[in-house]
């Protein structure tokens, strides 16, 4: 896997999955997103002589590498159908993981990044690593000079995270994955070969906790954070929040604030009303994945001609409505600052 190097402010920067290229051409080794529809998003890595298959047929990587740009449409070999090939952004990356495991979602991730005030150069601690969804967003915010130390209780997950981060171009220069039970063993970390501290007391800018008993991790977090460093805790149950908050205050955190953030998705459609003068059936034109569909709400079939005329003249009132199926809770985010 060959990665391009760019010079920035005199520093050689290895590219990652979010990196910019001015020609926008897809290269070998790039991870790209195959977008069939909002519900069908896949990540694939470009390798010569390989082929991506879906219901529309075959998409040979050789027809993509060095030829196509990110953000363009590609037809299958048989011309049966097409997909969009996209450069991943952190939201799409998170969405594609959401289809396989329980993760922190984009609205919460956004709050974490912004309220921890992450920026390039930050040294950040995270536990647990989980699917690595938040890890990737954190790294997006702190590269090229920052570093993430992420701790995971489950060995399989921590190994998988290393592989993902390597593929995405973050490992090893921006991230260190540690398999450890932090509730009992804390965050202090030494380089095994040199014996030097990688994570020492008072050296971390920000820390994120997503653990079953967060109050046990708070003292460990206090230890490694810098003065003024920020803590964020994510917990689904209010009892966990209550215990964690009390422990934060006890340890010496201040500005302890707990938030809950939900996101409501809206669909939009053209709603055609009947008129008293001209009795035309109501038509709702809904959209899904860019394909227009028509959905008759009434039961009798009157005035087809009028309906078509109406559609041409006037697409009806553009209406929006929140979707019925919606997330009611993910967790509480508590932020605090080390005094």
């Amino acid at each position, binding site marked *: 896997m060959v990665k391009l190097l760019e010079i920035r402010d005199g520093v050689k920067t290895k590219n990652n999955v*979010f*990196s*910019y290229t*001015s020609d*926008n051409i897809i290269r070998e080794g790039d991870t790209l997103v195959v977008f069939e529809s*909002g519900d069908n998003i896949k990540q694939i890595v470009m390798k010569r002589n390989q082929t991506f298959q879906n219901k529309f047929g075959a998409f040979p990587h050789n027809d993509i590498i060095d030829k196509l*740009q*990110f*953000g*363009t*449409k590609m037809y299958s070999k048989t011309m049966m159908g097409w997909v969009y090939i*996209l*450069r991943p*952004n*952190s*939201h*799409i990356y998170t969405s594609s993981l959401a289809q396989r495991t329980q993760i922190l979602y*984009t*609205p919460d991730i*956004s709050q974490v*990044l*912004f*309220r921890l*005030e992450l*920026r*390039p150069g930050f040294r950040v601690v995270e536990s647990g690593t989980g699917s690595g969804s938040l890890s990737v*967003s954190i790294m*997006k*915010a702190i*590269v*090229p000079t920052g570093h993430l130390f992420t701790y995971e209780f489950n060995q399989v997950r921590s190994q998988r995270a290393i592989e993902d981060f390597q593929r995405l171009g973050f490992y090893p220069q921006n991230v260190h994955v540690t398999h450890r039970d932090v509730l009992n063993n804390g965050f202090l970390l030494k380089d095994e070969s040199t014996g030097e501290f990688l994570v020492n007391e008072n050296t971390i800018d920000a820390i994120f906790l997503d653990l079953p008993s967060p109050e046990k991790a708070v003292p460990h977090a206090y230890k490694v954070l810098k*003065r*003024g460093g920020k803590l964020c805790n994510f917990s689904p149950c*209010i009892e966990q*929040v*209550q215990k964690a*908050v*009390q422990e*934060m*205050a*006890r340890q*010496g*955190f*201040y500005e*302890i604030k*707990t*938030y*809950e*953030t*939900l*996101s*409501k998705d*809206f669909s*939009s459609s053209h709603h055609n009303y009947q008129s008293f003068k001209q009795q035309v059936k109501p038509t709702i034109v809904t959209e899904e994945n*860019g394909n227009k569909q028509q959905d008759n709400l009434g039961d009798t079939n009157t005035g087809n001609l009028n309906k078509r005329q109406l559609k041409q003249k006037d697409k009806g009132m*553009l209406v*929006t409505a*929140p979707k019925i199926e919606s997330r009611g809770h993910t967790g*509480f985010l508590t932020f605090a600052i080390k*005094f």
Partner: protein
Amino acid sequence: MLRKIKHFKAMVDLGQLIGKEYGQFFEVRDSKSGELIEVTDVHQLTNQFLEDVDFGDAEENEEVKEIIDPVAGRDNRDYVDDNKSQKLSHEEIEALKKQGMSGNELIQQLVQNSETFSKRTKFSQEKYLRKKKQKYQITFQLKKPTALELCNVYSQTQPAKIMGLRADSLALLLNMANINQESRVILLDKTKGLLTGALIEKDVREILHVEFTGHQLKLQNEIFLEYNYKPDKVKRIQYLHHTNLDQSIVQSDSLLNAIIQTKTKHYNSMIMVHEDFNQVEMYNHIEHLIQPSASIAVFSLYIQSLAELKDHLLTNKKAVNIKIEELWTREYQVLPMRTHPNMNMHGASGFILSAVKVE
């Protein structure tokens, strides 16, 4: 940035703060000199979280119970007179406050007029002082002017200045635009530079700020200036008036034409927080400068504007993964036996459209 300064009755020379670190807390030692002292006991700031917790190196515990507040009811049951041995009446205390006495001096008065203070254990005395400090002492903090802090200040005091942007919406906007140190951003910003500053904070490579209003740059950048950025950061921003993107003008001006050529399909992020014009028209005006697969994020207070833009992008197959969402964010009071969502909330998060440009 020195907020809360208006709360003081005493005259305070802010020169005392020069050389201090961001993040430090101060209180007024005495009202005459206005001398500031640094807060060194964090539990003075967070006392309310700890009412029935034994913290620190206290040796005695038996007196803690005497000053625990009862569970807060809705009928003012959370008021408790925990100082029956206090010789100063409520009215006398209020009078002292009106005279401009500093919190620190007031607490000394309270201690001197307490019949029981000297009989308390050391632990209990500390707890008493912390409670009184939290009640009477005005502390303030030196804060660095960051996007988060500035957004919080303006959304509470002058939301119209920043187009009603709330911290949680700004957070989502930046994330949906995939902002990172690699970003080249085309920006339609009517937040007086709050948003521009937030991008500089993320160390983006390049910003093209397309102007749609005729006002002076200084007025438009009122909030941007509060970030106090060094010139090398600011030079990453290019300003361009939207009329300079009109096809007729561009074609007749060869220099402009050359510049525009280099910027065509150049930007990998687009953020719009602006609605003086129809957002569909605004988008079409700058569309050719956006790279395919770029992340698009648009904010509006009105879902109607975004629905039109979504309809346009969808109908013309200009973008995929188009989403209109509204955030709902609420703060919680998490205190012993008194945990509940905050009674008041900012109800207007606005709406965010996000999408990925395709060709």
